[in-house]
Protein backbone atom coordinates (compact mmCIF):
# COMPACT_ATOMS: atom_id res chain seq x y z
CA UNK A 1 0.00 0.00 0.00
CA UNK A 2 1.25 3.40 -0.93
CA UNK A 3 1.64 5.67 2.04
CA UNK A 4 0.86 9.24 1.47
CA UNK A 5 2.10 11.98 3.66
CA UNK A 6 -0.35 14.30 5.30
CA UNK A 7 0.88 17.10 3.08
CA UNK A 8 0.36 15.23 -0.17
CA UNK A 9 -3.10 14.14 0.96
CA UNK A 10 -4.02 17.73 1.59
CA UNK A 11 -2.64 18.71 -1.77
CA UNK A 12 -4.58 15.92 -3.49
CA UNK A 13 -7.76 16.98 -1.72
CA UNK A 14 -7.22 20.56 -2.77
CA UNK A 15 -6.59 19.66 -6.40
CA UNK A 16 -9.63 17.40 -6.49
CA UNK A 17 -11.70 20.08 -4.85
CA UNK A 18 -10.53 22.68 -7.29
CA UNK A 19 -11.24 20.39 -10.18
CA UNK A 20 -14.78 19.72 -8.96
CA UNK A 21 -15.36 23.39 -8.30
CA UNK A 22 -14.08 24.21 -11.76
CA UNK A 23 -16.43 21.70 -13.34
CA UNK A 24 -19.30 23.09 -11.29
CA UNK A 25 -18.48 26.65 -12.35
CA UNK A 26 -18.29 25.54 -15.98
CA UNK A 27 -21.68 23.88 -15.69
CA UNK A 28 -23.15 26.98 -14.09
CA UNK A 29 -21.61 29.13 -16.81
CA UNK A 30 -22.89 26.85 -19.57
CA UNK A 31 -26.34 27.01 -18.06
CA UNK A 32 -26.23 30.79 -17.82
CA UNK A 33 -25.00 31.10 -21.42
CA UNK A 34 -27.63 28.71 -22.72
CA UNK A 35 -30.43 30.45 -20.85
CA UNK A 36 -29.28 33.84 -22.08
CA UNK A 37 -29.13 32.76 -25.74
CA UNK A 38 -32.51 31.06 -25.49
CA UNK A 39 -33.94 34.31 -24.13
CA UNK A 40 -32.36 36.16 -27.06
CA UNK A 41 -33.80 33.75 -29.63
CA UNK A 42 -37.16 34.12 -27.95
CA UNK A 43 -36.93 37.88 -28.39
CA UNK A 44 -36.27 37.30 -32.09
CA UNK A 45 -39.22 34.87 -32.30
CA UNK A 46 -41.51 37.33 -30.55
CA UNK A 47 -40.46 40.14 -32.88
CA UNK A 48 -41.01 37.88 -35.87
CA UNK A 49 -44.48 36.96 -34.67
CA UNK A 50 -45.34 40.61 -34.06
CA UNK A 51 -44.22 41.42 -37.62
CA UNK A 52 -46.24 38.56 -39.10
CA UNK A 53 -49.32 39.37 -37.03
CA UNK A 54 -49.01 43.02 -37.95
CA UNK A 55 -48.69 42.32 -41.68
CA UNK A 56 -51.98 40.41 -41.65
CA UNK A 57 -53.90 43.66 -41.17
CA UNK A 58 -55.34 45.49 -44.17
CA UNK A 59 -53.44 48.61 -43.14
CA UNK A 60 -50.48 47.38 -41.07
CA UNK A 61 -48.76 49.61 -38.52
CA UNK A 62 -45.50 49.88 -40.47
CA UNK A 63 -43.68 51.85 -37.77
CA UNK A 64 -44.24 49.02 -35.29
CA UNK A 65 -43.09 46.50 -37.90
CA UNK A 66 -39.95 48.53 -38.58
CA UNK A 67 -39.27 48.61 -34.83
CA UNK A 68 -39.52 44.84 -34.54
CA UNK A 69 -37.38 44.36 -37.62
CA UNK A 70 -34.79 46.64 -36.00
CA UNK A 71 -34.81 44.43 -32.89
CA UNK A 72 -34.00 41.39 -35.05
CA UNK A 73 -31.42 43.32 -37.09
CA UNK A 74 -29.72 44.40 -33.84
CA UNK A 75 -29.51 40.90 -32.40
CA UNK A 76 -28.66 39.05 -35.62
CA UNK A 77 -24.92 39.89 -35.86
CA UNK A 78 -24.40 38.70 -32.27
CA UNK A 79 -25.81 35.21 -32.81
CA UNK A 80 -22.51 33.41 -33.37
CA UNK A 81 -21.15 34.90 -30.12
CA UNK A 82 -23.91 33.18 -28.16
CA UNK A 83 -22.28 29.81 -28.71
CA UNK A 84 -18.95 29.71 -26.83
CA UNK A 85 -17.21 26.32 -26.71
CA UNK A 86 -18.56 24.15 -23.92
CA UNK A 87 -22.20 25.23 -24.29
CA UNK A 88 -23.24 22.44 -26.62
CA UNK A 89 -24.82 19.07 -25.86
CA UNK A 90 -21.58 17.95 -24.13
CA UNK A 91 -22.20 20.53 -21.37
CA UNK A 92 -24.82 18.25 -19.84
CA UNK A 93 -27.24 21.18 -19.78
CA UNK A 94 -30.40 20.75 -21.82
CA UNK A 95 -29.90 22.54 -25.11
CA UNK A 96 -31.21 22.25 -28.65
CA UNK A 97 -27.86 23.36 -30.04
CA UNK A 98 -26.28 20.69 -32.24
CA UNK A 99 -22.61 19.74 -32.05
CA UNK A 100 -22.31 20.83 -35.72
CA UNK A 101 -22.27 24.45 -34.52
CA UNK A 102 -18.71 23.80 -33.32
CA UNK A 103 -17.58 21.06 -35.70
CA UNK A 104 -18.70 23.16 -38.70
CA UNK A 105 -18.05 26.57 -37.20
CA UNK A 106 -17.57 28.26 -40.58
CA UNK A 107 -20.83 26.85 -41.92
CA UNK A 108 -22.64 27.94 -38.79
CA UNK A 109 -21.24 31.46 -38.91
CA UNK A 110 -22.22 31.75 -42.58
CA UNK A 111 -25.78 30.52 -41.90
CA UNK A 112 -26.15 32.84 -38.90
CA UNK A 113 -24.84 35.81 -40.90
CA UNK A 114 -27.71 35.54 -43.37
CA UNK A 115 -30.22 36.99 -40.92
CA UNK A 116 -28.89 40.51 -40.46
CA UNK A 117 -29.10 41.75 -44.09
CA UNK A 118 -32.56 40.20 -44.54
CA UNK A 119 -33.80 41.86 -41.34
CA UNK A 120 -32.23 45.16 -42.43
CA UNK A 121 -34.03 44.95 -45.78
CA UNK A 122 -37.31 44.30 -43.99
CA UNK A 123 -36.72 47.25 -41.70
CA UNK A 124 -36.03 49.54 -44.68
CA UNK A 125 -39.16 48.36 -46.53
CA UNK A 126 -41.24 48.90 -43.41
CA UNK A 127 -39.81 52.38 -42.89
CA UNK A 128 -40.66 53.16 -46.52
CA UNK A 129 -44.23 51.98 -45.87
CA UNK A 130 -44.00 49.27 -48.56
CA UNK A 131 -46.58 46.74 -47.32
CA UNK A 132 -46.33 44.34 -50.26
CA UNK A 133 -42.54 44.49 -50.17
CA UNK A 134 -42.49 43.81 -46.43
CA UNK A 135 -44.85 40.87 -46.83
CA UNK A 136 -42.50 39.33 -49.39
CA UNK A 137 -39.35 40.15 -47.43
CA UNK A 138 -40.64 38.62 -44.18
CA UNK A 139 -40.49 35.27 -45.96
CA UNK A 140 -36.79 35.82 -46.59
CA UNK A 141 -36.23 36.59 -42.92
CA UNK A 142 -38.16 33.47 -41.90
CA UNK A 143 -36.21 31.45 -44.46
CA UNK A 144 -32.90 32.49 -42.93
CA UNK A 145 -34.12 31.39 -39.46
CA UNK A 146 -35.17 28.03 -40.85
CA UNK A 147 -32.07 27.62 -43.01
CA UNK A 148 -29.82 27.78 -39.96
CA UNK A 149 -32.15 25.83 -37.65
CA UNK A 150 -32.50 22.91 -40.07
CA UNK A 151 -28.76 22.25 -39.87
CA UNK A 152 -27.73 23.45 -36.45
CA UNK A 153 -30.71 23.01 -34.15
CA UNK A 154 -32.40 19.90 -32.76
CA UNK A 155 -36.05 19.74 -33.82
Amino acid at each position, binding site marked *: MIRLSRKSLTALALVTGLGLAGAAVAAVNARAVIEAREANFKTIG*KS*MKAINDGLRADAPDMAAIAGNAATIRGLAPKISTWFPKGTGPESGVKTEARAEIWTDAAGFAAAARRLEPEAAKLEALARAGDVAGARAQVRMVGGSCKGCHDKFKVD
Partner: protein
Amino acid sequence: MSETPTPVWDGPTRLFHWSLVVLVLVAWLSAGEQMTIHRGAGYALVGLLAFRLWWGLAGGSTARFAGFVRGPGAIRKYLQASREGAADEHAGHNPLGALSVLALLGLVGLQAGLGLFAIDEDGFEGGPLSDRIDFDLARQIAEWHELSFRALQGLVVLHLVAIAYYAVRKRQDLVRPMITGVRRFRAPVQGLVRAPLWRLVVGVLIALAAGFAASRGFRLG
Protein backbone atom coordinates in the same frame (compact mmCIF):
# COMPACT_ATOMS: atom_id res chain seq x y z
CA MET B 1 -69.51 -19.64 -45.87
CA SER B 2 -71.72 -18.86 -48.76
CA GLU B 3 -73.96 -16.11 -47.70
CA THR B 4 -74.99 -13.14 -49.71
CA PRO B 5 -72.92 -10.04 -49.41
CA THR B 6 -74.57 -7.51 -47.11
CA PRO B 7 -73.94 -3.77 -47.38
CA VAL B 8 -72.27 -2.43 -44.22
CA TRP B 9 -70.63 0.94 -45.00
CA ASP B 10 -72.14 3.56 -47.28
CA GLY B 11 -70.02 5.39 -49.84
CA PRO B 12 -69.68 8.64 -47.89
CA THR B 13 -68.46 6.79 -44.78
CA ARG B 14 -65.82 4.92 -46.80
CA LEU B 15 -64.74 8.05 -48.62
CA PHE B 16 -64.50 9.81 -45.25
CA HIS B 17 -62.35 7.01 -43.85
CA TRP B 18 -59.81 6.97 -46.67
CA SER B 19 -59.75 10.76 -46.96
CA LEU B 20 -58.90 10.85 -43.26
CA VAL B 21 -56.03 8.43 -43.84
CA VAL B 22 -54.64 10.45 -46.74
CA LEU B 23 -55.04 13.85 -45.08
CA VAL B 24 -53.45 12.75 -41.80
CA LEU B 25 -50.53 11.33 -43.78
CA VAL B 26 -50.17 14.54 -45.78
CA ALA B 27 -50.30 16.62 -42.59
CA TRP B 28 -47.69 14.39 -40.97
CA LEU B 29 -45.26 14.45 -43.89
CA SER B 30 -45.59 18.17 -44.52
CA ALA B 31 -45.26 19.20 -40.85
CA GLY B 32 -42.43 21.64 -40.22
CA GLU B 33 -41.42 21.62 -43.88
CA GLN B 34 -44.24 22.49 -46.25
CA MET B 35 -46.38 24.56 -43.94
CA THR B 36 -48.77 25.83 -46.59
CA ILE B 37 -49.62 22.23 -47.44
CA HIS B 38 -49.71 21.38 -43.73
CA ARG B 39 -52.23 24.12 -43.02
CA GLY B 40 -54.29 23.11 -46.05
CA ALA B 41 -54.45 19.52 -44.82
CA GLY B 42 -55.55 20.84 -41.42
CA TYR B 43 -58.39 22.90 -42.91
CA ALA B 44 -59.49 19.95 -45.01
CA LEU B 45 -59.48 17.78 -41.88
CA VAL B 46 -61.70 20.30 -40.09
CA GLY B 47 -64.12 20.08 -43.01
CA LEU B 48 -63.90 16.30 -43.03
CA LEU B 49 -64.64 16.09 -39.30
CA ALA B 50 -67.57 18.45 -39.67
CA PHE B 51 -68.89 16.13 -42.36
CA ARG B 52 -68.45 13.09 -40.12
CA LEU B 53 -70.31 14.77 -37.25
CA TRP B 54 -73.22 15.51 -39.60
CA TRP B 55 -73.07 11.99 -41.03
CA GLY B 56 -73.07 10.64 -37.47
CA LEU B 57 -76.40 12.34 -36.94
CA ALA B 58 -78.01 12.06 -40.35
CA GLY B 59 -76.01 9.54 -42.40
CA GLY B 60 -76.41 5.87 -43.15
CA SER B 61 -77.45 3.64 -40.24
CA THR B 62 -73.98 2.23 -39.51
CA ALA B 63 -72.38 5.69 -39.44
CA ARG B 64 -74.75 7.11 -36.85
CA PHE B 65 -73.42 7.65 -33.37
CA ALA B 66 -76.76 6.73 -31.81
CA GLY B 67 -76.51 3.39 -33.57
CA PHE B 68 -73.05 2.31 -32.46
CA VAL B 69 -71.91 4.27 -29.40
CA ARG B 70 -72.65 2.08 -26.39
CA GLY B 71 -72.17 2.25 -22.63
CA PRO B 72 -69.60 0.39 -20.51
CA GLY B 73 -72.12 -2.36 -19.76
CA ALA B 74 -72.62 -3.18 -23.42
CA ILE B 75 -68.86 -3.11 -24.00
CA ARG B 76 -68.27 -5.55 -21.12
CA LYS B 77 -70.98 -7.85 -22.45
CA TYR B 78 -69.48 -7.75 -25.94
CA LEU B 79 -66.01 -8.59 -24.62
CA GLN B 80 -67.43 -11.47 -22.59
CA ALA B 81 -69.36 -12.88 -25.53
CA SER B 82 -66.37 -12.32 -27.80
CA ARG B 83 -64.12 -14.33 -25.49
CA GLU B 84 -66.63 -17.19 -25.56
CA GLY B 85 -66.86 -16.92 -29.34
CA ALA B 86 -70.50 -16.03 -29.06
CA ALA B 87 -70.51 -12.38 -30.07
CA ASP B 88 -73.27 -11.57 -32.49
CA GLU B 89 -72.10 -10.56 -35.90
CA HIS B 90 -73.69 -7.38 -37.08
CA ALA B 91 -73.18 -4.69 -39.66
CA GLY B 92 -71.28 -1.74 -38.24
CA HIS B 93 -68.90 -0.90 -35.44
CA ASN B 94 -68.86 -3.25 -32.46
CA PRO B 95 -69.20 -1.66 -28.98
CA LEU B 96 -65.42 -1.68 -28.39
CA GLY B 97 -64.60 -0.37 -31.86
CA ALA B 98 -67.01 2.48 -31.19
CA LEU B 99 -64.61 3.77 -28.53
CA SER B 100 -61.80 3.70 -31.05
CA VAL B 101 -63.89 5.69 -33.52
CA LEU B 102 -64.71 8.34 -30.92
CA ALA B 103 -61.11 8.54 -29.70
CA LEU B 104 -59.74 8.89 -33.23
CA LEU B 105 -62.27 11.54 -34.21
CA GLY B 106 -61.69 13.39 -30.93
CA LEU B 107 -57.92 13.34 -31.25
CA VAL B 108 -57.94 14.47 -34.88
CA GLY B 109 -60.25 17.29 -33.80
CA LEU B 110 -57.96 18.23 -30.92
CA GLN B 111 -54.97 18.06 -33.23
CA ALA B 112 -56.54 20.40 -35.77
CA GLY B 113 -57.85 22.71 -33.03
CA LEU B 114 -54.40 23.07 -31.45
CA GLY B 115 -52.87 23.63 -34.88
CA LEU B 116 -55.05 26.71 -35.40
CA PHE B 117 -53.21 28.45 -32.54
CA ALA B 118 -49.72 26.94 -32.83
CA ILE B 119 -46.65 28.80 -34.07
CA ASP B 120 -43.17 27.58 -34.95
CA GLU B 121 -40.05 28.49 -32.97
CA ASP B 122 -39.16 31.25 -35.42
CA GLY B 123 -42.48 33.00 -34.89
CA PHE B 124 -42.88 32.65 -38.63
CA GLU B 125 -45.22 29.81 -39.57
CA GLY B 126 -48.40 29.72 -37.54
CA GLY B 127 -52.04 28.70 -37.52
CA PRO B 128 -54.71 31.22 -38.52
CA LEU B 129 -55.53 32.03 -34.89
CA SER B 130 -51.94 32.28 -33.63
CA ASP B 131 -52.11 36.08 -33.94
CA ARG B 132 -54.75 36.14 -31.22
CA ILE B 133 -52.36 34.86 -28.54
CA ASP B 134 -48.82 35.70 -27.49
CA PHE B 135 -45.67 33.90 -28.59
CA ASP B 136 -45.20 31.91 -25.36
CA LEU B 137 -48.72 30.51 -25.36
CA ALA B 138 -48.59 29.76 -29.10
CA ARG B 139 -45.30 27.87 -28.54
CA GLN B 140 -46.87 25.95 -25.64
CA ILE B 141 -49.80 25.01 -27.85
CA ALA B 142 -47.35 23.92 -30.57
CA GLU B 143 -45.79 21.51 -28.04
CA TRP B 144 -49.23 20.14 -27.22
CA HIS B 145 -49.86 19.89 -30.97
CA GLU B 146 -46.82 17.56 -31.16
CA LEU B 147 -47.81 15.60 -28.06
CA SER B 148 -51.33 15.01 -29.26
CA PHE B 149 -49.93 13.80 -32.56
CA ARG B 150 -47.88 11.18 -30.67
CA ALA B 151 -51.13 10.09 -29.01
CA LEU B 152 -52.83 9.98 -32.41
CA GLN B 153 -50.00 7.85 -33.80
CA GLY B 154 -50.46 5.49 -30.84
CA LEU B 155 -54.17 5.17 -31.57
CA VAL B 156 -53.52 4.51 -35.25
CA VAL B 157 -51.10 1.74 -34.32
CA LEU B 158 -53.71 0.27 -31.97
CA HIS B 159 -56.25 0.49 -34.81
CA LEU B 160 -53.91 -1.40 -37.16
CA VAL B 161 -53.10 -3.99 -34.48
CA ALA B 162 -56.82 -4.57 -33.95
CA ILE B 163 -57.31 -5.05 -37.70
CA ALA B 164 -54.46 -7.57 -37.77
CA TYR B 165 -55.91 -9.35 -34.74
CA TYR B 166 -59.30 -9.69 -36.42
CA ALA B 167 -57.66 -10.94 -39.59
CA VAL B 168 -55.47 -13.55 -37.89
CA ARG B 169 -57.41 -14.69 -34.85
CA LYS B 170 -60.97 -14.20 -36.03
CA ARG B 171 -60.39 -14.72 -39.76
CA GLN B 172 -62.30 -11.53 -40.37
CA ASP B 173 -61.20 -9.07 -43.03
CA LEU B 174 -62.11 -5.59 -41.86
CA VAL B 175 -60.25 -3.75 -44.62
CA ARG B 176 -62.09 -5.04 -47.67
CA PRO B 177 -65.54 -3.94 -46.44
CA MET B 178 -64.14 -0.45 -45.83
CA ILE B 179 -63.23 -0.45 -49.55
CA THR B 180 -66.15 -2.28 -51.14
CA GLY B 181 -68.80 -1.46 -48.56
CA VAL B 182 -70.05 -5.05 -48.36
CA ARG B 183 -69.33 -7.97 -46.09
CA ARG B 184 -70.40 -11.62 -45.98
CA PHE B 185 -72.00 -12.85 -42.78
CA ARG B 186 -72.56 -16.40 -41.53
CA ALA B 187 -76.14 -15.66 -40.63
CA PRO B 188 -78.45 -13.08 -42.19
CA VAL B 189 -78.11 -9.73 -40.46
CA GLN B 190 -79.75 -6.35 -40.75
CA GLY B 191 -77.61 -4.53 -43.29
CA LEU B 192 -76.94 -0.87 -43.83
CA VAL B 193 -79.88 1.47 -44.25
CA ARG B 194 -78.72 4.21 -46.59
CA ALA B 195 -79.38 7.90 -46.11
CA PRO B 196 -81.10 9.91 -48.87
CA LEU B 197 -78.88 11.83 -51.27
CA TRP B 198 -79.92 15.30 -50.09
CA ARG B 199 -78.27 14.59 -46.76
CA LEU B 200 -74.98 13.92 -48.51
CA VAL B 201 -75.35 17.24 -50.35
CA VAL B 202 -75.97 19.03 -47.03
CA GLY B 203 -72.96 17.25 -45.52
CA VAL B 204 -70.65 18.34 -48.34
CA LEU B 205 -71.84 21.93 -47.97
CA ILE B 206 -71.21 21.76 -44.20
CA ALA B 207 -67.72 20.37 -44.84
CA LEU B 208 -66.86 23.10 -47.35
CA ALA B 209 -68.15 25.81 -45.04
CA ALA B 210 -66.26 24.43 -42.02
CA GLY B 211 -63.00 24.01 -43.93
CA PHE B 212 -63.25 27.51 -45.38
CA ALA B 213 -64.09 29.01 -41.98
CA ALA B 214 -61.11 27.23 -40.40
CA SER B 215 -58.77 28.61 -43.07
CA ARG B 216 -59.90 32.10 -42.06
CA GLY B 217 -59.48 31.31 -38.38
CA PHE B 218 -63.30 31.41 -38.10
CA ARG B 219 -63.15 35.15 -38.73
CA LEU B 220 -65.61 35.93 -41.45
CA GLY B 221 -65.33 39.68 -41.64
